């Protein structure tokens, strides 16, 4: 049984204006990036995966449960969703209370919830801010609070909607490490992002949506090799991939690290 199965799903907010059209894929553990131009249906898709929305046609199964027959609350132990805008998610007036809210809601004891919340805050390097009001923090810190709120529930599936927005280098590095650690723990990580370098560095599989349809689905290197198809979806490969193409390299490089190693090893005296 797949962790997630999406079978021929279509969805429209307004009749006659489809947002997703006949989308099919399945997911298990690992890291998957969902990319596509603004308005391509990415955020709608993850709301469907979280059962915040229900498909008009087709079905979505989360660990075998049809989302039409369950609720977002019942799925909370399995699927965690970090919203794009932390202000849509945060409502408590203390960071620790905010991060404990999820674990308490899925039935953890106060002690257990507190322990998980503090561990999650340590993961995002905000343990020293646990007594502060989230709205006294910067936007990037609030985003990390919203991530901690989901990590504290220890769900099998974690979905991030644009996690690197408003993050500086430190914040991005932190989020990259969180994604890698979660994958190492055997979880399924799904991320919506416009940051192609982040995708190249951290994600094993890429799904490309274009005008509500699934355009590409495959290993990251294979998807980023199809530059012409990506352009039709208003996307471009990571900068290092573009560099390699510009200097005539045949291969698809996904990170600066990978390219530097290859370049140095290809020098005559190496």
């Amino acid at each position: 049984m797949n962790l997630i199965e999406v079978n021929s799903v279509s969805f429209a907010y307004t009749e006659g204006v489809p947002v997703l059209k006949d989308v099919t894929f399945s997911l298990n553990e690992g890291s998957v990036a969902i990319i596509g131009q603004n308005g391509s249906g990415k955020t709608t898709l993850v709301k469907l995966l979280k059962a915040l929305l229900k498909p008009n046609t087709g079905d979505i199964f989360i660990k075998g449960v049809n989302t039409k027959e369950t609720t977002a609350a019942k799925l909370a132990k399995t699927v965690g969703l970090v919203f794009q805008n932390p202000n849509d998610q945060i409502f408590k007036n203390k960071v620790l209370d905010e991060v404990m809210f999820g674990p308490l809601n899925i039935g953890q004891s106060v002690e257990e919830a507190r322990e998980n919340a503090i561990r999650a805050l340590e993961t995002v390097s905000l343990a020293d801010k646990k007594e502060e009001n989230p709205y006294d923090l910067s936007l990037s810190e609030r985003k990390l609070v919203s991530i901690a709120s989901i990590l504290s529930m220890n769900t099998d599936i974690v979905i991030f909607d644009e996690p690197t927005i408003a993050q500086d280098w430190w914040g991005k590095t932190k989020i990259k490490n969180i994604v890698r650690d979660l994958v190492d723990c055997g979880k399924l990580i799904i991320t919506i992002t416009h940051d192609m370098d982040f995708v190249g560095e951290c994600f094993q599989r890429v799904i490309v949506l274009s005008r509500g349809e699934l355009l590409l689905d495959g290993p990251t290197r294979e998807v980023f090799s199809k530059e012409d198809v990506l352009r039709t979806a208003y996307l471009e490969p990571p900068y290092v991939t573009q560099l390699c193409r510009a200097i005539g390299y045949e291969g698809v490089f996904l990170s600066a690290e990978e390219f530097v190693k290859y370049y140095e090893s290809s020098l005559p005296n190496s």
Partner: protein
Amino acid sequence: MKAVVVENLKYRYPSTERLALDSVNFEVEQGEFIGIIGKNLAGKSTLCEALVGLVPHFYKGAYGGRVVVDGVEVLSSTVSELARHIGIVFQNPFTQITADKLTVYEEVAFGLENFGFDRSEMVDRIDYVLKLLGLYEYKDRNPFELSGGQMQRLAIASIIAMRPSIIVLDEPTSQLDPLGSEEVFRAVQSLSKEGITIIMVEQKMEKIAQYADKIMLMHEGRVIDFGAPEKVFSRPDLETYGVEPPVFTSVAKRLGINDNGTGLYPVTLEQMRRLMISEPHRS
């Protein structure tokens, strides 16, 4: 006349102890495209607010020094007077969109109506900016039915329509897809070429290095460096300020690929390509 003059600007938000801006000095020529970089809490957004007068007219606190934009003293002016000279696009479009207008078209018209432009002038400007930012097909849609990226482009369009002499943009492309970001950078660059001064805070280093004439590096409320992108991004201590250079510069530094004449590292794909296909380039 300089577009922007900032002299010894110091500012502290109410009920805080740390200076958000500390002894900031710089000048910007008319039509220049300035990119501001730095890690979170470096003072970038506060500086933007100080340029448009939100600091100190809306956000109170301790203020010292002098800011002059388009020849107007910020301290002795008002935010609404300053809006005729300098416009700002915020990071989050929800902060900017009025929530009072039912269509994208009306939203762009709002600022122009407030300034009392003729109807024909308004129509020309609205059509121009909606096409410039790829929003014309959505002109009859409710702004809150747009995607996040489309909403951000609407916020930018609303400011560009008013044609201020100076436009400040605070991470305007953070929610846009790659080619959507490219469109915004190109649109902003074309405004700069028309003589409009651009001051843009950005975290996308590859893009800001490609488009800006100068880069301002900020850290803890201070200006650490202000100059050509190649100069600022070639700093050996850049990472101590929490800033990662463009990936091209990062790769070039690790491979020792730089300009033999200046010793500076490439910051754009084209500069890197030229250096890599020419010899000798390794230091």
